[in-house]
């Protein structure tokens, strides 16, 4: 993917509007699991769009942080999808979602210790070997620290990049959400990351709640415009990385296509400014 361009997370209801757009986004991203059925409209749409623009695959079900290796059948489905669409990138999360054969449909927190590092390392290797392509790993949203963690998340990601050769999908909203929720400085977090490995950036919305202790807590809900503080952090990140392909994610209460597109245009403006620096 061209690093200086912005894209949108694709939803089926936007198909006609996207095709009719005279100035379409530079790429689209889809959740891999939504395209693992045999046929029908999802594949018809994605095949048509793939003719016009790069597609990236974003997995939510491999459970790379799980105690057990990724499910072989699920990995095989991802590989089949990868062959069919030849995506510009494939990404997954630093999280677990499956335990003992049950899938929890959420990105659950991994303890950052050496045992986890070795385990996730093996799982990432396995996926990269199956795909024959570098996998991008996304930093998660965290709502609390796990007491048994022995290292900071950026150090864990840096070690993972070093060991597996994976790339990073830097989710700026997740950085902001995690840092606010756990009392860290998001700019210090960014500087501690292996920024040379960032291949893609995600921007999304979050909601603001109050927890049981009366403290504010941010929830990564992908259901709102990108927050101003996240835009500001995004500009700071671009100042460190240079222009990086950036995706607008909006997965719940999905708005009209034009709203998503305008968020992507705003990201495009930031990328242009970063290039000019």
């Amino acid at each position, binding site marked *: 993917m061209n690093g200086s361009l912005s894209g949108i997370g694709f939803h089926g209801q936007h198909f006609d509007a996207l095709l009719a757009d005279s100035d379409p986004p530079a790429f689209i991203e889809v959740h891999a699991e939504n395209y693992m059925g*045999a046929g029908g409209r999802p594949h018809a749409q994605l095949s048509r769009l793939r003719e016009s623009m790069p597609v990236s695959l974003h997995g939510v*079900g491999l459970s790379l942080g799980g105690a057990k290796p990724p*499910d072989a059948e699920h990995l095989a489905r991802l590989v089949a999808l990868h062959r069919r669409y030849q995506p510009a990138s494939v990404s997954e999360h630093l999280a677990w979602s499956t*335990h003992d054969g049950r899938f929890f449909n959420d990105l659950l927190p991994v*303890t950052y210790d050496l045992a986890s590092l070795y*385990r996730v390392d093996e799982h990432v290797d396995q996926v990269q070997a199956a795909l024959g392509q570098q996998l991008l790993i996304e930093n998660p949203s965290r709502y609390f620290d796990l007491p048994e963690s022995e290292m900071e998340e950026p150090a864990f990601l840096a070690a993972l990049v070093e060991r597996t050769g994976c790339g990073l999908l830097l989710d700026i909203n997740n950085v902001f959400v995690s840092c606010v929720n756990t009392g860290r400085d998001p700019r210090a977090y960014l500087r501690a990351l292996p920024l040379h490995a960032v291949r893609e950036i995600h921007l999304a919305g979050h909601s603001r709640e109050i927890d049981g202790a009366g403290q504010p*807590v941010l929830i990564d809900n992908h259901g709102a415009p990108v927050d101003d503080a996240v835009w500001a952090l995004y500009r700071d990140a671009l100042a460190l990385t240079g222009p990086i392909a950036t995706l607008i994610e909006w997965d719940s209460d999905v708005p009209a296509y034009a709203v998503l597109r305008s968020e992507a245009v705003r990201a495009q403006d930031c990328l242009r400014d970063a290039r000019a620096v």
Partner: protein
Amino acid sequence: MNAFTRQAAFAGWLRHSPSVPGQAGALPVNGVDASRLAIHRNNFVASLVDAMAEAFPVTQAIVGDAFFRTMARQRVLADPPRSPMIAGYSDGFARFVAEYPAAAAVPFLAPVAQLERLCLQAFHAADATSAAREDYEVLCNEPARLGHTCVRLHPSVRWMRSRYAIHSLWAAHQGLADMSAADLGGIESRRPEAALVARPALDVVVVLLPVGACDFLDALMAGASLETAMNDARAGAHDADPTALFSLLVRYGLAIEFIDNRKEFQ
């Protein structure tokens, strides 16, 4: 604690510790505010309940949002998905509805859920090209062929019989901005109906089946010739109309191939 034990504790808490006060001691992670942990439980339950609401809109409209979400929540906690492909989770949901005690007062609910499940299966079924009109014309022009012609059905084709008016109930909810506004007053729910679900192109169609059609389709699926399948339909219901049954295939593009079974045995 190793990762398996840690994650087992977390997974167990996600499933078995729904907001019961006074259970703070059972948290899977020490020293973390329970309301923060509950964000994950909410993500787990609400995302799957939402997925079921999206997949079963008519079922939800019939019983109302609150009843539906309580039912779906119980299913999610009792039987979380076994695969990250949520579409497959809907198969089990229709069965859960059939066994959900509180839904027993609405006996047509599970059959309607089953119909919606078939729609979802058809939506994701493999693609195939329906047989051409000319293929049907050959059969119409030489009816003798019906005795030795079998049909390969489109992979999206499903059908079901019910003791309830499943098609009428389902159809009453279509084309409305708000399905909960559907008027079921004129529907005699205890009238048996059979429905066909198919997706010959990209749109799923749901059709009220005429008398004998399920027997006809069952026979075709089992590899019988068109003539045998028509005879089966008439054996089951003397007023089954072979022309109407054949027309179903043509109209909804249900056949992808006609196979001359004499050739197969040569």
